[in-house]
């Protein structure tokens, strides 16, 4: 499960780091840029652990047949869909601006966003529950994701050591 969280969370954090990189390159040394990257990656790992802990808590709290039986597959679907769906949440200001700060229009858009999220989530969870083929596809996907996730974990470990060195030195 941790490995499944690692992929979307790290992709997101790396993309955002790359978005800010040109500004860092203006005035920051390579060593300090590596430091910033390390903080970002270590916090991504912490975030993965937190999310995994939340999933484990939910799975042990709910009746076995709801979540625990297909914990990995269902968790993967929830994580991937949520990761995609959460992106507009960070562009609230831009969305409000494009709607000319009309709060009613914004609330309407937000409601569509929430309903859309729930609909897509329920659709995919139902698909897994009732179509065994879709469950197999997700499992295949997880198998392919794992090596990449291990790579990210390795990067996180290096980043952690680099930060430890920065703080001690």
């Amino acid at each position, binding site marked *: 499960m941790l490995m499944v969280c690692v992929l979307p*969370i790290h992709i997101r954090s790396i993309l955002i*780091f790359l978005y800010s990189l040109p500004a*860092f*390159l*203006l005035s920051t040394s390579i060593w300090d840029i590596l430091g*910033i990257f390390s*903080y970002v990656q270590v916090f*991504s790992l912490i*975030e993965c652990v937190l999310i995994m802990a939340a999933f484990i808590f939910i799975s042990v709290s709910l009746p076995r047949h709801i979540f625990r039986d297909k914990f990995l597959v269902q968790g993967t679907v929830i994580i991937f869909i949520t990761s995609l769906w959460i992106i507009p949440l960070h562009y609230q200001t831009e969305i409000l601006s494009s709607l000319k700060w009309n709060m009613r229009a914004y609330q309407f858009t937000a409601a569509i966003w929430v309903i859309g999220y729930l609909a897509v989530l329920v659709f995919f969870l139902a698909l897994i529950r009732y179509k065994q083929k879709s469950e197999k596809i997700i499992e295949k996907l997880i198998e392919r994701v794992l090596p990449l996730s291990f790579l990210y974990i390795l990067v996180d470990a290096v980043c952690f050591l680099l930060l430890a060195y920065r703080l001690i030195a």
Partner: protein
Amino acid sequence: METNMISRRDFLKLLGILPLSMLRVPDIDFEATNTLGEEIPSILIIVFDSLSATNMSLYGYPRQTTPQIEEAARKSTVYRRHYAGGNFTVPGTASLLTGAYPWSHRGFNLNGVISRAFEEQNIFQSFNPQYHTFAYSHNTLVNFQFHQFRKFIDQFFKRSELSLLSNHYADGFLNDDFIVASIAEELILWNQNAPPSSSAISRLDRSKRHYSEMLVNRKYSDQFPRGIPNSTILYFTIEQAIDWIQDQIIDQPKPFLGYVHLLPPHYPYNPREEFIGLFDDGWSPNEKPESVFSESRQASQTPGLRRQYDEFVAYVDAEFGRLFGFIESTGYLDNNYLILTSDHGEMFERGIWFHNTPTLYEPIVRIPLLIWNPNQNQRHDVNYPTSCVDLLPTLLNATGQKIPEWCEGEVISTSEYGQTDTDRSIFVVEAKENPMYAPLRNATAALIKGDFKLTYYFGYDGKQDFFELFNVMEDPEELVDLYSTHPSHARQLKDELMDRLATSDI
């Protein structure tokens, strides 16, 4: 029969006036001498962030924004045409602290640091070890520079020292890696230009921050109806800072060099309750043409924002007046220096708000400078252009120390008897988008000489390079561009500016 014994009634009377004795300022010995027995004055520099000279009644602004500073100025030297090194905190403060222009110290990027060479060439290094040095800043960007100068700052206070609420984690347990940790913290938790890199952690942190901000704002809502003054993650009041400065004046070892950088009147403009509505007077400044760098701000909102800024300036002024009253009562000014200045100004015109702009118009680069010299009894006005890079050599000269070669500023007169080249050239540089260690290719540079100011805009995407020339003495509002109508004067200044850019830049 007379008796020396006091009666019970007298005792009760004395008891009644006992609290008054608490108001008396304690006796403080400000005199310090060196090994030769010569007296060494202490120096206290107070910087108010984003304080524009053009919005201070001290410098002729129609609104009475600074009556307390005007009163205090009666025993000081007032520099009437004083310029910042750039148009925001990084170049403004770096030039003040190093005595060098931005093309030398290279501190001109947002979140920028300054060149490694200046870690050994700055005001703290120049006064240490003869002086005890201490420094505090509300502003993170100034703290970046403090961390670079750290080995020369004897007592370096964290940002949270003067805060009601601090959500700046790098200022706490990651303080040893402050610069990188602060940049990373912004990226991970509260990125303003893009989504934060974390989803869950930033959401949790945002909820925690909002809750703690709500509590502190609610606690002080009677005094601060618009909210507590803040810098997004640090909440504070000027009262708290002024009380703290008073303590430092008493407690710091003498002689000291103290640098205190307070964020007000920087945005958000949250003054104390009695200053709100102080300038609901219907006054508005002259209309000015839209800048080519206009941010298309809503013109209808500009007067209201300017009014809020003026109210915040008045709040700063009142608190400075309180500090000055204390300083006078201690006798500090008998043999020590007090300096009041800013790092850059603020503007509400030409379609531009605040100070994040490529322009270098007067409201954004003309800042206050007042120096209270030891035992000065009357006001002197200095009317020729001066720069923040002049402060370091001037203070070194005043305290009998050698001025280092790397200093680009000049010693400016601190009294009417002083000698200064009044026809000298002053420079201001803005280069946020230019790489730190690349030659200036995307920047704005201004040359101020005599009555004139030439500004050169170059390398901006989609815009032709161009010049503007104003006679800032006859036209302080910069309404009439003389660049095409005064070609010979324009050429002379242009040659000097281009020559200086070519020789001073890397």
